[in-house]
């Protein structure tokens, strides 16, 4: 699943560690989500959405979604 986490983080000038601290996860987790190695759970996706004050679908893109 693609996501805009890296862009959103860069816009706020946060490091991966800063974002990890704000989300209460490890830096490796942020890196794994940004690089698409790991899809976060729904609770974590909601936390990310709340942190950036955006709807989930504006952060995560479902690559399998039809027209």
């Amino acid at each position, binding site marked *: 699943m693609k996501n805009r986490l890296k862009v959103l983080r860069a816009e706020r000038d946060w490091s991966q560690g800063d974002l990890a601290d704000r989300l209460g996860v490890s*830096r490796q987790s942020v890196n794994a989500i940004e690089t698409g190695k790991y899809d976060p759970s729904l609770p974590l996706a909601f936390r990310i959405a709340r942190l950036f004050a955006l709807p989930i679908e504006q952060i995560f893109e479902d690559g399998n979604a039809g027209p």
Partner: protein
Amino acid sequence: MSGPSRLHRNLLIGVVCFAGLAVAMVLTLRIGVAMGWSQPARIIAGTAGAAALVLLWGLFAIRLNRSMDEYQRWREQRAWYVGGLAGLLLSVPAYAFVGLGGLHWLFPATDAGPAAARAFSSGYMLALFMPTAGAVIYGLWTRLARR
């Protein structure tokens, strides 16, 4: 304390305690041998020590699991599943080779009579059977528990 720091601290405590208990167990057995303990006493002491080690590691495994975030937990489970399954599958030809006398063939001086072959087979089957049985039981339990 943040998640990763807590994880590292718990991991360090677990390894140090496990190593300490293992050394204590070995020293106890050596002292026992020097004091002339009987074989049943050594077997019981050794088995009890191993059980204590496993109990300690189990407790720390729970602590470690609780210290992890969801990605670390997912990575750990995947590593155990993929790595453990690969190791288990690779052990089968190795078992066949050793069980059929491969070591004795390579190193004729090795004592590899029928008794040694039976002991090897028992040990291998225990190590093969326990994780497989554990995985099956856990799988059944989670299926039934979700109904």
